């Protein structure tokens, strides 16, 4: 660099930045639009419904629930009281996860336009054009600014439009702008990691590790007043500290933007000094030889899905454990919240109307009496609901594992394996076995996760034994297997239409979840495998139904294998 005059350096390094930005925005337009629409539909779209659904009593309850240490660890410090109105409560509840999601959007956005392009050789082509050395990075930043800016403004305006009196214009804009600022902070950080790592996978991994660390550092800071400053050292802590609709602090916004600019400057500095395709951290050499695992096709299937399987199990455990944190005061929660009460009591066939003018304590007493009279206890009913919802949420994982057989085929890698003395049966069986095993493992881990925390928080640990939790989780396995088996059948019969399983999954989700509220006709749940699963403690374990369900899964799987053996293997790359 010292060979060249400083002015030259400055002029030539940024030339054509704006043209590149236009090009990037063009590539980004559908993805960005999808993010903005879906994100706003979910986050802002919840506002009117929740505003109506949560009455004054529920708001008091919600505010006090958010003061629990477990909740503070999960969603940040409790800043909302009933006096600030719905806006503050809602923000307190979802703000952390909402800004975190925008962070994730930016991790992918920046990686896509910098390191991933470089890795694919596209950046090389761009650099061969009369384009400055730092133009691409600058264009990526400008793109991030435009996308985050649009997200911020649209979100702020929508929040203002959707909100009640407690959600004024300026706080709504703060709400939106903090999202954008956190987004830019992660954009800058990801850009830095894109210089450090020599490949996009590394850059994304580093960024996610940073995000997770920020989350936990923030949790530590939020939970211990002595270490409160820790929280403010992270973008997530800063964002929550701004507390829109409550304290309405604007300085975290300035700090976030300033810090983003500083990190971006470091990224520029590193980008200017490194060579194309190189990272500041040299790539670690991998294994020169395969482990014993890679001596069979089944071993390969396991190797390909191993990381995802481990992450899924950790996720299931963590979700189960975090659901269990609510178990400590589930009776208060259910007594005062209509929605949860319906979700919990309707499937048990218990009718409970809260009488006017009762205190929460009286409500809890009455409620427990009613539930106990029906032969249940609330803790078990709650665990049953968690099981039900968790299965609906996590069912995607075993489906993804078995559908890997099809994505391998599309990527042209299946034929490489089938050109060796590996029969198709064995090849497909590897993915099927992992899918089936994953369902079983996930349910075991869920029971253990629930149990681990539940024992510490529920008043009467005997209500929720590990045996009960195992039993109520494992009864779902045949239904989960049936879903995987349908996917296998599709892989065998209609490999181009495996998307059908996702539609059926969405349908199952809807019917079973909303089915809990007894809105749909009852027979509808029997159009999904989940309908045949006994929900403990309300239902008895029905071995016949479970065996039949397993038999159906086995039959569908066998049919899938039969047709897979007969059809052509099609890679998309070939004609």
């Amino acid at each position, binding site marked *: 660099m010292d060979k060249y005059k400083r002015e030259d350096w400055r002029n030539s390094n940024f030339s054509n930045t704006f043209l590149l930005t236009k090009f990037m925005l063009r590539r980004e337009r559908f993805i960005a639009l999808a993010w903005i629409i879906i994100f706003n539909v979910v986050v802002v779209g919840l506002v009117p419904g929740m505003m109506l659904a949560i009455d004054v009593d529920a708001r008091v309850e919600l505010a006090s629930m958010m003061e629990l240490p477990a909740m503070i660890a999960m969603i940040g410090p409790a800043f909302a009281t009933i006096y600030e109105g719905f806006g503050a409560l809602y923000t307190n509840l979802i703000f952390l996860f909402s800004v975190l999601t925008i962070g994730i959007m930016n991790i992918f956005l920046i990686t896509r336009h910098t390191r991933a392009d470089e*890795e694919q050789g596209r950046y090389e082509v761009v650099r061969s054009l009369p384009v400055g050395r730092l133009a691409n990075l600058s264009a990526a930043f400008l793109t991030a600014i435009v996308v985050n800016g649009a997200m911020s403004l649209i979100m702020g305006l929508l929040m203002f439009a959707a909100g009640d009196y407690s959600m004024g214009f300026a706080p709504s804009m703060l709400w939106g702008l903090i999202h954008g600022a956190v987004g830019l902070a992660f954009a800058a950080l990801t850009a830095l990691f894109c210089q450090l790592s*020599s*490949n996009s*996978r590394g850059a994304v991994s580093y960024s996610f590790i940073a995000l997770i660390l920020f989350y936990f550092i923030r949790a530590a800071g939020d939970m211990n007043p002595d270490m409160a400053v820790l929280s403010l050292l992270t973008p997530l802590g800063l964002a929550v500290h701004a507390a829109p609709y409550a304290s309405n602090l604007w300085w975290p916004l300035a700090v976030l933007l300033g810090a983003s600019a500083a990190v971006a400057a470091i990224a520029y500095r590193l980008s200017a000094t490194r060579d194309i395709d190189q990272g500041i951290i040299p*790539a670690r*050499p*991998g*294994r*020169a*030889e*395969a*482990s014993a695992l*890679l*001596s*069979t*096709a089944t071993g*390969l299937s396991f*190797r*390909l899905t191993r990381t995802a399987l481990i992450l899924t199990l950790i996720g299931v455990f963590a979700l189960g454990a975090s659901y269990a944190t609510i178990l400590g005061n589930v009776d208060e929660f259910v007594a005062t919240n209509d929605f949860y009460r319906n979700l919990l009591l309707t499937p048990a066939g218990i009718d409970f109307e809260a009488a006017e003018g009762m205190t929460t304590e009286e409500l809890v007493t009455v409620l427990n009496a009613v539930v106990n009279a029906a032969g249940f206890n609330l803790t078990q009913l709650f665990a049953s609901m968690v099981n039900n919802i968790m299965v609906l949420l996590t069912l995607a994982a075993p489906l993804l594992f078995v559908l890997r057989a099809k994505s391998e085929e599309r*990527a*042209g*890698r299946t*034929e*490489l*394996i*089938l*050109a*060796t*003395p*590996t*029969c198709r049966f064995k090849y497909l069986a590897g993915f099927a076995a992992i899918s089936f095993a994953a369902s079983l493992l996930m349910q075991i881990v869920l029971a253990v996760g629930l149990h681990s925390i539940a024992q510490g928080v529920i008043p009467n640990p005997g209500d929720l034994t590990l045996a009960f939790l195992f039993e109520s989780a494992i009864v779902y396995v045949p239904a989960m297997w049936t879903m995987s088996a349908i996917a296998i059948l599709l892989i065998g019969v209609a490999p181009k239409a495996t998307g059908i399983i996702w539609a059926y999954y969405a349908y199952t989700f809807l019917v079973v979840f909303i089915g809990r509220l007894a809105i749909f006709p009852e027979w509808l749940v029997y159009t999904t495998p989940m309908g045949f699963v006994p929900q403990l403690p309300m239902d008895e374990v029905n071995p016949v139904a479970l065996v039949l369900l397993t038999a159906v899964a086995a039959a569908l799987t066998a049919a899938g294998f039969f047709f897979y053996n*007969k*059809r*052509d*293997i099609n*890679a998309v*790359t*070939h*004609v």
Partner: protein
Amino acid sequence: MQYSVEINNVTKNFGKFSALKGVNLQIQEGEVFAYIGPNGAGKSTTIRVLLGILQSTSGTAKVFGKDAWRDAVEIHKKIAYVPGDVNLWPNLTGGEVIDLFVNLRGSHNKDLRKRLINDFNLDPTKKCRTYSKGNRQKVALVAAFASEVDLYILDEPTSGLDPLMEQVFQECVLEQKNRGKGVFLSSHIMSEVERLCDRVGIIREGEVVQVGTLDELRHLTRYAMTVATERAIEGLDKLDGVFDITKEPGGLHFHVDTLRMGEVVNHINQFGIKKLESTPPSLEELFMQHYKKEGA
């Protein structure tokens, strides 16, 4: 004579499109056979039928006397396949993929593996995502040649290799040929075909239009000739099999059908030959002729 590959009247339809329209091929054991033809002619489809990855619509395809579809697993114990587009697992290293393929084929010769990795100048510790097309091909080639098999099915295996590596590849093929192993090679690189192959089959629009040794194929084409004579040649344009006559400073230049060569030389001889140069058609010319020709 034993056939390693026997394809009888194989057709393959994809919906309304027929990729193969009755392909016939017989390849002898230990033979290096070149399978050439323009893009989209059906080379890869033929190979994938041979591998039992696609099922032929009609006809029979046999490898080592066994049915390519039904006995695929048995057959695959004795073959190694390298595709033209080598798609590998981005998060496995080259070394891991080589071991995977060799393990699946059931033989493991560590010294051979080491030597091949060295010859092909491959870094086996890198993740496949970082490999260029050429390096991915090297991974598949090392895995193929490190396996103990009787037939190598190679589908444009060197399209991403540099000339030095192309040389290494050719040495590998010749080594296997000397050991009596067969090779079924689809290729666009004529020098490769000329140096390695015993016989050539040309496929066009789903039909095999020519099969034979290179010499046999040359017989079906034209030589380029330049002739200088004492007296002006008369009546040359009236002879059958003479084309494209042009006058050049060194003499007359024209093309002759190989089969008419004798008659033409006899005719020219009457005019007192001072100089006669004949150039056999280059492989490129040979193939271009077949690629472009309407029908066989």
